């Protein structure tokens, strides 16, 4: 009896999910097909075969509401009857609200891991939706229908302070084309970071093993090491580095190495793993002597070592 009840509840649950999951056409909608659109919009159609959305037309197997122009713009009969006009297009992207734009695109594009958090992403919460970054009909970019030829130009359009950081003498090579913003960030919303606290998603994408994206390229810093520099694992690479760009060599937060180290390694209580502060330099280090001011000359393996607790080798 109990098993039967559970089965019934589960059955209803999955039936509900199935019903909700089934895409539905707009009630009373009249679809005219993309060939009708072509009559008045020949220039859009002339190059549309290069557009990834052309797949829906080429397939020939999709339902009308999932095919060609009307899959995004909605049924076109009213627009045809009115002999044109933006107001008669059910979904005219320049007129509809950001939420409507997002809903329309996510009808097809929601189901990938990289867009799993798009509804709660910082971009969406600021009304930055698909058409702010993607140009469906006039994209100058070779891939992803980006609205700018270079991905970085697209991001700099809003993130001017980031553009300033990448203009610094020491920076990751984004402007030069070696890297792209999406090597480290997921503009569609990232999962919570797991390498530090204050883990509100900030569009930082994880490396495969759920690690900081820095480790995708900086493979030698990944470890594991017998002696980890705990700061790298606990608070992340940004403890010492400014990842976008810096006026300091090696993207360090300070131009002088020893002050960068001493600001943590001051031996004062309440900090560190033992609550006695990360160890300050020993009495053998005369910090007035320039010899001791570049800590990494001796503490070479500062990201982690297998042979030395003090990162000597």
């Amino acid at each position, binding site marked *: 009896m109990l098993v039967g009840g559970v089965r019934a509840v589960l059955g209803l649950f999955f039936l509900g999910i199935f019903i909700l*999951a089934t895409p539905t056409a707009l009630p009373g909608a009249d679809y005219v097909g993309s060939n009708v659109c072509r009559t008045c919009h020949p220039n859009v159609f002339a190059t549309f075969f290069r557009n990834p959305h052309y797949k829906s037309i080429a397939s020939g197997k999709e339902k009308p509401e999932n095919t060609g122009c009307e899959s995004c713009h909605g049924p076109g009969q009213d627009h045809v009857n009115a002999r044109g006009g933006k107001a008669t297009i059910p979904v005219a992207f320049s007129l509809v609200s950001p939420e409507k734009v997002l809903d329309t695109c996510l009808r097809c594009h929601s189901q990938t891991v990289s867009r799993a958090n798009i*509804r*709660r992403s910082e971009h969406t919460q600021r009304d930055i939706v698909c058409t702010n970054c993607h140009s469906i009909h006039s994209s100058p970019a070779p891939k992803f229908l980006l609205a700018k*030829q270079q991905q*970085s130009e697209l991001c700099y359009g809003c993130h001017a302070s980031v553009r300033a950081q990448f203009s610094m003498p020491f920076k990751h090579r984004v402007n030069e084309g070696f890297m792209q913003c999406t090597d480290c960030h997921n503009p569609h919303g990232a999962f919570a970071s797991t390498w530090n606290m204050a883990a509100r998603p900030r569009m930082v994408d994880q490396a*495969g093993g759920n690690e900081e994206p820095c480790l*995708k390229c900086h493979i030698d810093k990944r470890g594991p090491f017998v002696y980890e520099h705990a700061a790298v694992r606990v608070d992340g690479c940004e403890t010492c580095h400014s990842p976008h760009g810096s006026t300091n060599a090696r993207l360090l937060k*300070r131009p002088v190495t020893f002050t960068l180290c001493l600001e*943590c390694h001051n031996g004062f*209580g309440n900090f560190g793993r033992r609550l006695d502060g990360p160890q300050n330099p020993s009495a053998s280090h005369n910090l007035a002597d320039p010899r001791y001011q570049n800590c990494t000359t001796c503490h070479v393996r500062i990201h982690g070592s297998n042979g030395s607790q003090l990162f000597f080798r």
Partner: protein
Amino acid sequence: MTRTKIIIVAHVFAFTLQAQSPVAPTAESVGIPRGDTISGYNVRQSFEVGYRWHSVGGDAGMYRSTVNYGNGPRLLSSSLSVNSVDGHGGYFDHVQINTIGLGNDPYESASLRLEKNRLYRYDLSWRSDAYYNPGLTISGGEHFLDTVRRVQDHDFTLFPQGSFKIFLGYSSNTQTGPALTTIQQFDVRGDEYPLFANIRRAQHEYRLGTELNMMGFRLNVLHAWVDFKDDTPVSLGAASQGNNPADLNTLTSLQRSEPYHGTSPYWRVALFRENKLWAANGRFSYVAGHRAFVDDETAFGFNRVGTPTGTQIVTLGNAERPALAGNFTFSLFPSAKLTLTNQTSISHIRMVGNSYFTQVTNGVFSAFNPFTFLGIRTIANATDADLRLTKWFAVRAGYEYSTRRIRSIEGADIRGVTTPPSQRVPIEQENGLHTGLLGVRIRPLKALSILLDTEIGRADHPIYPVSQRNYETYRGRIEYKLKSVRLAGYSRTDYNTNSASLANFASHSRQYGVDGSWIPKSWFSIDASYTKLHLDTLGAINYFAQINNVGAVQQVTTDQSRYVSNIHSGNLSARVSIRQRVDVSAGYSLVQDVGAHSLVFPQTFPLRYLSPQGRVSVRIREKIRWNVGYQYYGYHTDFSGLQNYRAHTAYTSVLWAF
């Protein structure tokens, strides 16, 4: 839309909001070529072939570290696009190839996409970065690098538009080239010596995954095998007096071999679903990092009292790092105006290391067997609400709590004497962080948007003095955008105060900026931005020093590290197109840290880095452009002129598109 209009639109896209990218490759296109249709495929190609020059006055090493463009012929850029006209090609429907900088530019890349609708998609990305670093740090860095990093990613998807997909992937990352590193011999009061290292690192990752769509849920499973090896040999080129020739320390020979190999296989499982009323996604990942190593180092010379010394160090062992992470996010959309989201995440990472360390110095044997453990467990829960009250006003709020536990053991069995279990008790501490977020967005006019938000966080036991403890962030942004004009201004303030009984750390960061672009005509555009980045930090430091170079070394416990940077950054660029035949563009980029002059003993390092550029691009024929460009780089620091440089770079090229 006529073809001319399409070309104009394409030019406008190219004109607006250009970053200060290197002057080459050329941004201007020859329009939108229709391409040729062959056997049902439309084929378009473009090639920009040219020659680069450069001339550097001053520190060429710093130029190579920050810019690094050299002389020689280049394929500055190229593209090939092949599309099936009816979407029913033979073996493929779309091929897209793009390259940048091939032919010895320091930054080279190539990408390929090959796909057949509904059947497969293959993406290849290949990149190469030649990185040079002449040991840059003000206090005498000695870690030189002249390496090339090559990264390639291959991703193959079977049935990319289907309900069932299969993923295959391969990535490789290599770093090779000469470098200098350092070592201190023969004890912790010894001298420091530069060593030659021939860097040889490689990582290979193989991925296999699948995605299944069933009843609206999508299950994504990925397994990857990652192999890493580092076989960098280290040696001393010739006998050396070290950094301090006045002492008796001398290193006559050193050989080090330290093969370091391991794997980091990982699993990632994601389940997600979205519909009108709710969305949910969960992700679980597990990585089992493992590294095995041997370090064999032999050194001969004289120690700090002049005694002949020979030492051999052998270390072998392994390090393990299993890491598990999971996220679950649930979003509710009770109405079109309200989104509620709750996210829970957990991360658990353990680092366990075992190694056997032996050292023989002048026949005296010592050994120890360290055991180390570091475990970090973080649990976080965040709730966000986003309410769109009207078309022009929305508010969002959020709260997050995260708690972290850190456990560690550091110890060693010395010469086979096993440490009793009572001394292997881990050190443990927990800390928590509460954060709150409140923001509004206002759109009083369609062209005007205003965003304001603040985040305030309070942590109870930050692990480091520089960690976030009592922090506040205030952000504001206003943007006005019409067809030909865009103006935006923003401000961001980050304050963090972290203090304990004897130490305090405070960080104040403020960013302000304005930027805008104006495109009054299709043949003219101008783009400008200005950003001020201010940072001042104040932290208590504690060290030993010989005060005023007199007397004994004393402990200094009352000093502070104060760092101030005031960076002004500006970009200005303008483009003019004359009769759609000649395009002239000019840009100017300036980064200037003016430092701080009014404070007492701050660390402040004023510098100026500027880069004007200009380019002329002439449309010779319908499909051919001739381009010439010049870019200047100037790097100047007030602290030390040793690394200043002035560099003139130029190029000329022919762009052919058809």
